[in-house]
């Protein structure tokens, strides 16, 4: 479904990703682990067309999408759910959600998806009219995820979905991801704090200093002592 080949990414002079090759199969959940600041978000953003300087190749459903800008990729079915949320601060929760369905292929499902995400996150239903800028940290995170779900994308890049969520919701989000995966979506995930990550992901990558240092199935990851110690300790 998605494949990167020797991907390199830069911010100005700063070389962040070094020859990163990963792939995500149809209907698969892949997770990227790695220490803070080692390029996980940059990898997701590069795939989703949000980084200006990338080299290497990215293909999606067999098509080369290297350098394709985010706004076009959304129509192709690739969506990024940002770590820092990127909401529209002066718009209500509802308007933010509606904008999540801006792309052509999401539009027909807007009503249906809206009902669904409001059911998934009752807190958002409660706060429909509130401006996004005044949401609490966790509420904003929910809105970001919900807005991403509105896009009806086939391939979702989710950056730290559990960031700032209360414990029971973290489990909830984990379930939601499982659920949408079951419905046929492929997911590439960056996540540090779901203990059950091994249970969720079909494939796990480890990204250190911009390089892939481990690749394997969840089971293989579980057997890797280094990984276990650092990432699956919570």
């Amino acid at each position, binding site marked *: 479904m998605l494949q990167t080949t020797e991907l390199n990414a830069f*911010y*100005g*002079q*700063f070389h962040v990703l070094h020859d990163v090759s990963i792939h995500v199969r149809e209907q698969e959940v892949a997770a990227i682990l790695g220490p803070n600041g080692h390029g996980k978000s940059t990898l997701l953003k590069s795939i989703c067309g949000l980084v200006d300087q990338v080299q290497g190749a990215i293909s999606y459903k067999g098509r080369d999408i290297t350098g394709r800008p985010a706004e076009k990729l959304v129509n192709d079915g690739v969506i990024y759910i940002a770590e820092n949320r990127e909401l529209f601060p002066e718009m209500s929760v509802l308007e933010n959600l509606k904008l999540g369905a801006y792309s052509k292929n999401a539009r027909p499902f807007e009503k249906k998806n809206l009902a669904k995400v409001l059911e998934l996150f009752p807190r958002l239903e409660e706060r429909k009219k509130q401006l996004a800028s005044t949401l609490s940290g966790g509420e904003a995170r929910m809105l970001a995820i919900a807005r991403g779900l509105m896009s009806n994308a086939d391939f979702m890049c989710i950056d730290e979905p559990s960031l700032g969520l209360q414990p029971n919701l973290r489990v909830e989000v984990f379930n939601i991801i499982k659920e949408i995966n079951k419905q046929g979506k492929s997911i590439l995930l960056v996540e540090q704090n779901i203990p059950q990550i091994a249970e969720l992901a079909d494939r796990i990558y480890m990204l250190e200093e911009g390089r892939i240092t481990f690749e394997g199935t969840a089971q293989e990851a579980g057997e890797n002592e280094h990984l276990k110690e650092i990432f699956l300790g919570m």
Partner: protein
Amino acid sequence: MGGLMAIIYGGLAIMPLFVGGVDYMMHILIMILIWAVVASCWDLIMGFAGIFSFGQVAFFVIGAYASAIVSNKFGIPPFFSIFIAGGIAAILGVLVGLPCLRLKGAYVALVTFAVHMILEPFLKGHMGRAIGTGGSRGILTIPPINIFGYAFTPDNKVAVFYLTLVLAVICSVIILMVIRSFWGTAFLALKDSEDFSASLGVSAFKYKLAVFALTSFLTGMVGGFYAHYVGMLSTRMLGIDLFVTLMIMLVIGGIGQFPGAILGAIVTVTLNEMLSPLGPYRPLILGGLVVVLVLLLPDGVIGLLRRIFGGKRKTREAEA
């Protein structure tokens, strides 16, 4: 910064050796120094403090009128009246600054520019005439600065030039010291994130007002100096021309690139003079030049010098 400033002023200081006999050239040099201070003040408040103050010309004119009126009406020697003028400009600066503290970006620009726009009808109107602005006729006789019996009139341009130079150097050193001191850091911090700065103990109120006061004081004082040099005043300085010219100085010098503004003043005044015979093509070319320069020289002449000589540059963007 200090070194470059010394070179620039040093270079200007020896100019009278070559053109000391030509009043016209000396006049240009004097005006360069005057505008250099005004542009530097503008750079301080806009480039460093990040406050879009568009009242610089207004404070200049306020200082000029204040000093002229104070010395004409109360017989205070111009040497002192220019400080009084600076004080008056500073007080007005604080008054204008107060409402601006709660405002942002283009709003601040508007409120400060409002001072500029209101100033002309005020000076021309009944209120202005009552305090001695001479209404729309202006003030046509203003005594020259007199130090120990030596009068600095437009007839002694070399003397006036060196006096201006002293003033400009003092003002520039003050500006430099402010930028180098913790003020500079406070401004950058406030510009980046006001709530983070506040949580670290930075008072936006205090520093913003202080910068309003300081820049209007210096600008007003230089305005006063100008009044006594030229010896006459009218509201015609408030046209858009001077405002734009000062802005061009900043563009050429580089915003937030002190002492770029001084270089900007030199280049702009010279260019303006050279283009003057072209009549309407002068502003046409200047305008086009601004567009091109903003695009090609993001940090003005200073940025260019840095690129050529590889001087160190304070990174101000979120780049690695």
